[in-house]
């Protein structure tokens, strides 16, 4: 094969790739929800790895051209969304669609459910120390959590897990993108402060044994 022929073949391949990328753009534009790469792959009959690569190329192109929108991978798929620095304009436009912010109670409950799913209402209650029923209902009504299973034990308690909408709310692709829970275990000085606060022994006596070790088997989360 001559060089020229090589080039020609290359050009054809490039053209074809450009066409696939155009198809990807068109499909994502009309989708209501983030489009999973495997669905895109199926539609244009190309391997998923390539589809993912092309999506990333498109994302980079929009970024390089400083478009007012971006292609983001969220909740397991690709979607178009407005660039975050255009928020003031978009907010003015969608004036009434103010996004609801979550309360502290809701966020803490969501945090527990996200890391411990599937989890029952009673388990959430024991961690929070308060009846989570109302918060759980609110989160469920908002679509951030849902009943995902039933406990096998007696009573068959409903078990909750997070939804795709939760991933969208946090702007992440999967729950695996959440930082590992180990990062949040309180630092030694806080644990020490807590321990001191709850010291059993009289003040003059060193708390020699019966002390709690944060690295022990009691670690919250996994």
């Amino acid at each position: 094969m001559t060089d020229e022929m090589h080039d020609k073949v290359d050009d054809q391949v490039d053209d074809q790739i450009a066409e696939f990328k155009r198809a990807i753009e068109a499909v994502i534009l009309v989708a209501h929800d983030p489009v999973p790469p495997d669905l895109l792959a199926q539609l244009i009959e190309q391997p998923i790895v390539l589809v993912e690569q092309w999506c990333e190329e498109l994302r980079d192109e929009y970024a390089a051209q400083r478009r007012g929108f971006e292609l983001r991978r969220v909740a397991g798929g690709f979607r178009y969304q407005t660039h975050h620095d255009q928020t003031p304009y978009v907010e003015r436009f969608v004036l009434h669609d103010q996004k609801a912010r979550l309360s502290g109670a809701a966020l803490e409950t969501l945090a527990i459910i996200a890391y411990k799913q599937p989890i029952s209402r009673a388990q959430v209650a024991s961690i929070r120390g308060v009846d989570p029923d109302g918060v759980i209902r609110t989160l469920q009504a908002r679509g951030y959590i849902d009943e995902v299973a039933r406990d096998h034990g007696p009573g068959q308690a409903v078990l909750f897990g997070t939804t795709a909408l939760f991933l969208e709310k946090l702007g992440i692709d999967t729950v695996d993108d959440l930082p590992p829970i180990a990062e949040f275990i309180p630092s030694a000085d806080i644990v020490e402060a807590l321990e001191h606060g709850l010291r059993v022994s009289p003040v003059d006596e060193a708390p020699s044994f019966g002390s709690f070790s944060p690295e022990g088997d009691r670690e919250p989360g996994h």
Partner: protein
Amino acid sequence: MTIDVSTPVYEGPFDLLLHLILKEQVDIYEVDLSRIVDAYLGEMDRIQALDLDVATEFLLIAATLVELKTRRLLPGTADDDLDEEFAMWEERDLLLARLIECKTFKDVAQVFSRLADDADLSFPRTVGPDERFSSLMPDLLEGTSLRRFQSAAIRALTPRPEPTVDLFHVNPIRFTVAEAVAELCDELPRIGHISFRRLTADLAERLEVIVQFLAVLELFKQGLVEIDQTERFGDIDILWTGGADVDPSSVLVDAYEG
């Protein structure tokens, strides 16, 4: 149902206990259980009419605390009954473990809040195919169960709370302008742009709103925010102009407190 706005927000007994202990963290050897127990009982007194479930939890923990306090005041009893002593430790450890777990998820919640704030800055396109494709779309109600329809109705007809900026991770009792300024120096660079109404929507007490307002004015004086009010008595837009890293301690605050 009446809402008693003078009661500070505690999400539960652990929350309260965490707050009380960590408040004293300055010098851990100064941490005084007696004071914690007293403060805890005092707060319980203030949170009077709780519903039964919550009150029980508060009481259970209060009982553990009181027992711990008694132990400490009566050092001699330790030798008398080892079993009892161990049981005490076990209970203490359990409480400690729950406190640590509670603290862990409180910190996670802050990260969630930050992620959600960032995500809220972008709006997804959910427009769908245009009318050229409508003939191809399957019947959109096909397969919609009555249950899905019912929950959509519940979702749609449940009253929406006012959108708020939630400052939950800040100490529940927060009254000084300096503290409010420090908080805003932390929050505003991230949020960038917010209306005063949204900023204060989560504050229960008028005094807190006033403190927040003074804090915003202080930042304005320091040239860290721009303020815009498009109509008289209208909402006030606050725009952070201070850059990414402002050391709140460098923002001098006149003493408004008192």
